[in-house]
């Protein structure tokens, strides 16, 4: 019968290789293109092509002062908007030498962990639907509401909080936040237990992810991947633990890692981290002192010329900001080193040689967010 006319043109010399453009208009890609070459069902080459949602965040930063940079800096990753803003605030505090009240530090940790859970649930939902598990899409998306509700009560917005500012947070937590948080987090923990039955222990899910896309620890380090992907390969590298910022050194928590480095481990580590986040939030709510939450600043905070490199552990991994200040109220250069961008090399590395049907299982387990990677 032969191939249909349009495909015959794009065949290569070998006559077997079919080039498929996965994205940017593809339900399984996001705003991102993956040029996949398949030989039968085996992927022989995968070329990531980011840049469809590049909006020049770094250039925009140079035109705005430190406070005005806050709303637009959280746009690349609205599922984890506190996480992406956190290192920026830390960096500005270092440059301009702004003190942060103790209570604000605790609130920041609470919000960052809440956002980590919100993000992981979003990610888990999409991972579920990528593997064809529609219930695993609906459940996390629904349960995310429990946490968004908390975030909304504290910050006044559902996803784009604009909550962290250099020198603390915008406002204090509402009155009955602690009880509300404990109630909803307990239920959320109960829900997480349900996920194991229907998804994580489902034999079909295990078939699809165990032993798929194995990334060894050495490769993981060398490719520069970070976050749950790195920890799934057996490297216990968590910025919260190794270089504690704010009050993480006063909280008791565990860093989880798995040794297999396959898609299953990359999917399982976030689940464990969500349990740990609940633990951290509860501890922080208990330990939180009272007092002010924001250092009063002028509208244009500025510091001496200098540079800072601050990193935090966001939901997707190590998120770092390289800030260069020239003494004016606007940053001279802002370099965002985002985890998603650092996962790109692993993508083509892992996809080569795997099956086309494994593509969603590998691609999405890498925690890659096109909008964040493009900035």
């Amino acid at each position, binding site marked *: 019968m032969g191939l249909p006319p349009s495909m015959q043109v794009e065949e290569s010399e070998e006559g077997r290789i079919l080039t498929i453009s996965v994205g940017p208009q593809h339900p399984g890609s996001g705003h991102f293109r993956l040029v996949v070459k398949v030989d039968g069902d085996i992927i022989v080459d995968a070329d990531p092509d980011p*840049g469809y949602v590049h909006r*020049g965040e770094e250039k925009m930063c140079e035109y705005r002062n430190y406070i005005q940079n806050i709303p637009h800096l959280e746009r690349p990753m609205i599922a984890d908007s506190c996480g992406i803003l956190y290192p920026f605030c830390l960096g500005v505090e270092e440059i301009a030498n702004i003190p942060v009240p103790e209570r604000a530090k605790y609130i920041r940790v609470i919000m960052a962990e809440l956002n980590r859970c919100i993000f992981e649930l979003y990610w888990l939902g999409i991972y579920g639907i990528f593997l064809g598990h529609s219930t695993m899409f609906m459940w996390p998306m629904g349960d995310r509401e429990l946490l968004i509700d908390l975030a909304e009560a504290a910050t006044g917005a559902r996803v784009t909080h604009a909550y962290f500012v250099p020198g603390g947070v915008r406002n204090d937590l509402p009155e009955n936040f602690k009880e509300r948080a404990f109630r909803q987090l307990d239920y959320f923990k109960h829900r997480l237990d349900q996920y194991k039955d229907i998804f994580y222990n489902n034999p079909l899910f295990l078939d699809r992810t165990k032993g798929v896309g194995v990334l060894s620890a050495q490769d993981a380090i060398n*490719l520069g991947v970070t976050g749950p992907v790195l920890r799934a390969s057996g490297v216990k590298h968590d910025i919260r633990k190794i270089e504690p910022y704010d009050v993480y050194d006063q909280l008791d928590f565990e860093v989880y890692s798995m040794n297999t480095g396959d898609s299953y481990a990359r999917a399982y580590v976030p689940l464990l981290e969500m349990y740990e986040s609940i633990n951290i939030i509860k501890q922080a709510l208990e330990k939180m002192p009272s007092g002010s939450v924001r250092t009063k600043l002028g509208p244009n905070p500025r510091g001496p*010329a200098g540079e800072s490199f601050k990193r935090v552990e966001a939901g997707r991994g190590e998120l770092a900001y390289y800030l260069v200040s020239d003494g004016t109220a*606007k940053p001279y*250069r802002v370099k965002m080193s985002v985890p998603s961008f650092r996962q790109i090399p692993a993508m083509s590395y892992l996809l080569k040689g795997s099956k086309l049907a494994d593509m969603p299982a590998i691609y999405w387990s890498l925690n890659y967010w096109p909008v964040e990677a493009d*900035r």
Partner: protein
Amino acid sequence: MSSQGDQPEEGSQAKAEAKPEAAKPEAAKPVVQKPVEIPALEKGIIEKFTGRFGDKIKLVYAKPKRIRFNVKTEDVLDFARFLHDEVGFDQPISVAGVDYPKENIIEVVYHIGCCTKPEYTSSVFAFGLKLPRNDPKMPTLIPVYGGVEYHERETFEMLGVIFEGHPRLERLLLPEDWADIPPLRKDFSIKGR
């Protein structure tokens, strides 16, 4: 914020004054402070490098957990190999380019973290290169740090730095029909600002 209206002029003046500080005198300043406040761990790392490279490299600053050297273009591969193999900083975090039009240089700053050696995991090691602005060329560090491939591609695209030996120095984030100067250079300005 009330002085926001005349910000552009003020900003450019301030930039003009601050520029020399940002690059060179700043490099000299921490040297004065250095003996006072360098912790032991950082001092150990610095001594390793000064012992190996001597005057070829220059310490820019050494804050707690953050060290930065400036390296010459011809030494950078040796430097990176030493950093990776001997010292043990093995995880590339970021490659940033900074444009200084007044000094006519482009700085490329590598930030390298460490995953394997427990004593260094909390530190970030940075090294910068000063490249001439009209012909920014440097060797690629892919042979040492495989993960910098896309970071270097981005730096090439955003600042026009050419990494010699890079396997795929092509368009990454910008539109395919981009026909302007690299956008993160300071003489490229956003429309309307």
